[in-house]
């Protein structure tokens, strides 16, 4: 047996996180390496687990609504919408048209602010410092609109079961239209910084490939699925909140890599602007709340309601036993399910690419761990 030397190439296990700037929170990834090559990864999650589903069983339907904002806290509006739709389905009611239009406008604005946070931090991870300052500038404008509407910027609790609590504020239409006028040119700015940038393209093209077959097998949805080429979006496939009335496209990619996922999200932001404009210009008048009983006690039953959140399919499974508290609430968090694909995307790539791949999945650990 020859004696081992420093020149021996052996497998190395490297621990990344839970405190690591590129893991966007408290994600721990254990990497098995051969030199710079990744042989396999394992995610260790749960550092942010707060037992949201358990809390749901001990709160009334109304009391639980603000908790959902704390899962995917950069897309709190989407979380709230999914929960409200699920409870409304159990109650057999529907929000009135005016409430639906406001819901759509704010949810799409939230999609933009979520994508902006993703874009800024994703570029920062890869080494482009500038975009984060640009994207946070516009994100601020979006958050100001949320603040004006409901008083909160991040965990908004914007909607209520059955509709909306607040009528739109005086400058609602003006603010949103001003945002729609301003924003497309700003997306052009980001694209100028990144889309043709040789370093950006070099770091993202061909990295972290996840084909349509992989996505279906691993239940991956949202931008990664669309970037792989499948034109599937719940807003079109199974419309909710009146999405069938809006004219917009589903952007898709072809190469299923990090660069295409970037392009898909950039185009999604442009489509969201189109939807917001339609939702504001065609805002119907009328009530903002459906007839909801004072005490919410849905009949015994269960339902599964999904919406297209910025990160993928967000599902709520709510079981009622005809009491004031839900018997069970299950949240299908897109971040959690999509993160499962990390191993498949990382195998064979370089350590530096792992950072790009974590960024491109677009996870929020509050939602992964719940």
């Amino acid at each position, binding site marked *: 047996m020859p004696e081992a030397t420093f020149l021996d190439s052996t497998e190395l296990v490297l621990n990344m996180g839970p405190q690591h700037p590129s893991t966007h929170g408290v994600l721990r990834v254990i990497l098995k390496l051969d030199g710079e090559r990744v042989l396999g990864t394992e995610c260790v*999650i*749960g550092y942010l*687990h707060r*037992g949201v*589903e*358990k*809390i749901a*069983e*001990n709160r009334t339907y109304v009391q639980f609504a603000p908790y959902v904002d704390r899962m995917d806290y950069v897309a709190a509006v989407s979380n709230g919408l999914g929960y409200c739709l699920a409870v409304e*389905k*159990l109650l*057999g009611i529907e929000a009135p048209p005016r409430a639906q239009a406001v819901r759509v406008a704010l949810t799409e604005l939230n999609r933009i602010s979520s994508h902006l946070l993703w874009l800024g931090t994703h570029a920062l991870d890869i080494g482009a410092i500038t975009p984060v300052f640009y994207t946070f500038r516009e994100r601020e404008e979006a958050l100001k609109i949320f603040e004006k509407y409901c008083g909160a910027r991040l965990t908004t609790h914007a909607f209520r079961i059955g509709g909306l609590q607040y009528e739109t504020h005086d400058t609602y239409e003006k603010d949103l239209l001003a945002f729609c006028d301003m924003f497309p040119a700003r997306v052009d700015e980001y694209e100028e910084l990144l889309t043709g940038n040789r370093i950006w393209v070099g770091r993202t093209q061909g990295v972290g490939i996840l084909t349509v077959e992989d996505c*279906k*097998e*691993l*239940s*991956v949805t949202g931008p990664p699925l669309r970037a792989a080429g*499948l034109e*599937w979006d719940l807003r079109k*496939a*199974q419309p909710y909140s009146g999405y069938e009335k809006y004219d917009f496209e589903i952007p898709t990619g072809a190469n299923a890599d990090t660069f295409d996922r970037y392009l898909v999200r950039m185009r999604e932001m442009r489509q969201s602007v189109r939807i917001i404009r339609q939702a504001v210009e065609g805002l119907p008048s009328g009530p903002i709340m459906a007839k909801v009983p004072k005490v919410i006690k849905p*009949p*015994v*039953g*269960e*339902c*599964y309601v*999904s919406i297209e959140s910025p990160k993928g*399919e967000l*599902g709520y*499974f709510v*079981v009622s036993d005809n009491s004031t508290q839900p*018997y*069970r609430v*299950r949240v*299908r968090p897109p971040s*959690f*399910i999509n993160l*499962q694909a990390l191993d498949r995307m990382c195998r064979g790539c370089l350590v530096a690419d792992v950072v790009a791949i974590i960024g491109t999945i677009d996870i929020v650990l509050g939602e992964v*761990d*719940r």
Partner: protein
Amino acid sequence: MATTPWESDLVSRMKTRFGESIREFSTYAGQNFLLAEPGAVVPILEYLKIEEEFEYLVDLTAVHYPKREQQFDLLYVLYRFPPHNERIRVKTLITEGDRPPTVTGVYAGADWMEREVYDMFGIAFDGHQNMKRILLPDEWHGHPLRKEYGIIQQDQRWVQENLQIESGQ
């Protein structure tokens, strides 16, 4: 639950194929589900995936009913992409201590979902490659989404040993 019977071509095909192993085809709130015998779940999912194009396992979860003899509902939510654009739920009832077979062989994406069900309900899946907790620490005792687990209950020993504090409350 006030359900109505669910009838479609898919249902009649499944009735001929699986017969008695599927006890019920129902609809509630416009959503279709079927109730299957625990042993038939894997063949049913295999059939649905391969022959009926339900390629996407949306979700896998459980519900605990401590007063029932068969304490747990186990649910599989499946979807087939357009042109079908259809979503169904496969439901089965299992007893405490049962080890239902894993479906990771059919849908690789079930891996973490089954681990979460194990973590939260203590239902261990037979044949799963990596059947361990996912959100809670590996040494934790108890399964929090069971109904007998209190809202402020914690694994005191784990908290004391690992966090060096008397109590997490």
